[in-house]
């Protein structure tokens, strides 16, 4: 896809620093975000810039195709590529929605206690969705079960009831940038905690909790 224009991606707080990405790099970063979201046990940061840029790019490709000659072989190949990119994008968004539905009280709690400068893990639409989902679930539980219970048992604490994401689950990862001094916690009582270095290009199987900040910064890629 060398024909599309180069895309500019603005920094999230609107400062004048621009990051110019070719379409190929944009698609690769979408695929990386997609794989990370699929294999991480918790909801990762929302990459709304990538989503918006990809949607712009898809619109541009569609309009190009409309103008093209009918019956040209390239048209069907480009259309196939559009379908593939659209699939990756919708799978990414669907994966995030599944995680929001699964862990909604904890995500809303985290969002509430977020410090101002930190990036949000929810896009504005996802935040509205999560709030509506929580309100609907509470209304449903109240109407179906709680209002028939004795008055002192009518409260339900969703934060305790809904299971938390399991940050101890193991994930496979590939290292993109070399990392030093990662502290690994002991598995059994006989082991002690030890420190490892992650070489670039190596692949590991490790608990998610240990490398969570590295996934957020893009230093490792979940596979």
């Amino acid at each position, binding site marked *: 896809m060398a024909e599309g224009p180069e895309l500019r991606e603005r920094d999230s707080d609107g400062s004048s620093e621009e990051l110019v990405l070719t379409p190929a790099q944009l698609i690769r970063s979408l695929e990386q975000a997609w794989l990370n979201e699929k294999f991480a046990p918790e909801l990762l940061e929302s990459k709304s810039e990538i989503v918006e840029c990809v949607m712009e790019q898809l619109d541009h490709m569609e309009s190009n195709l409309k103008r093209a000659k009918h019956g040209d072989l390239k048209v069907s190949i480009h259309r196939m590529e559009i379908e593939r990119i659209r699939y990756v994008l919708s799978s990414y968004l669907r994966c995030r929605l599944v995680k929001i539905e699964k862990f909604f009280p904890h995500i809303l709690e985290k969002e509430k206690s977020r410090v101002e400068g930190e990036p949000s893990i929810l896009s504005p639409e996802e935040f509205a969705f999560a709030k509506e989902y929580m309100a609907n679930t509470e209304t449903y539980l109240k109407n179906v079960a709680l209002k028939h219970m004795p008055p002192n048992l009518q409260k339900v604490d969703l934060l305790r009831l809904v*299971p938390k994401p399991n940050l101890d689950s193991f994930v496979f990862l590939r290292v993109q940038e070399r990392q030093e001094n990662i502290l690994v916690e002991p598995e059994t009582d006989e082991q002690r905690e030890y420190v490892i270095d992650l070489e670039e290009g190596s692949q590991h199987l490790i608990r998610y909790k240990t490398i969570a900040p590295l996934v957020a910064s893009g230093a490792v890629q979940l596979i």
Partner: protein
Amino acid sequence: MRVVRSPGPAAASAWPRLSGSRGVGARRRPPAMSEAYFPVGPGLGPEENFLSLEDILMSQEKLPGRVEAALPRLAAVLGKGAGAGQSDGIPEGSKVEIPLWLAKGLYDNKRRILSVELPKIYKEGWRTVFSADANVVDLHKMGPFYYGFGSQLQNFDNPENPEIAQTILQTFIGRFRRIMDSSQNAYNEDTSALVARLDELERALFRAGQKGLNDFQCWEKGQASQITASSLVQNYRKRKFTDMDG
């Protein structure tokens, strides 16, 4: 080299003709990528999930114990009602068999009300059987929630807790290989003989393996890009049909 399929416009028209001839069998398949509804799974380790149906069923299993303090007027509730009247109490020191959820609620660190004993499959004798060969044991008969119940037993103070935890872990490690093998290689056949001796956690694993195998075979045959009715909608339609009939 295999070409990766994708729903191109030319290809989409060919598939319905091929699969239409398959008949009734084509309808049942769930979508490979995502389900409409995700039930809450069982909890990990000594925690239970409040909203999980498997955990609710598991915590209904009975646990033998001894009552430490006298419980007036509760004989009927705790199952000693046969022969006793409505308002009889349970004297101190008598043995009861109560469900796990009740035991967890009544158990206190100072052990004022209840003291629990281990069911026999977590005791020393059976632990040596498991360590000898875990594959031959019929875990479904031994209480269908061996792993879950054993993890919950860690909540009660018991000097044998570390050994119980080790035994459960080693049993799982010993049996897992066979479950993985059988679930990945039994395609389109009757699996009741394979599943009969597994407990509920292992059955869930087996079903996950079978689902993966079936989805892969569907994808290979090209049936993955067909749109099928969601399982929720199918059930809804079935119920409506019987409403009209009855």
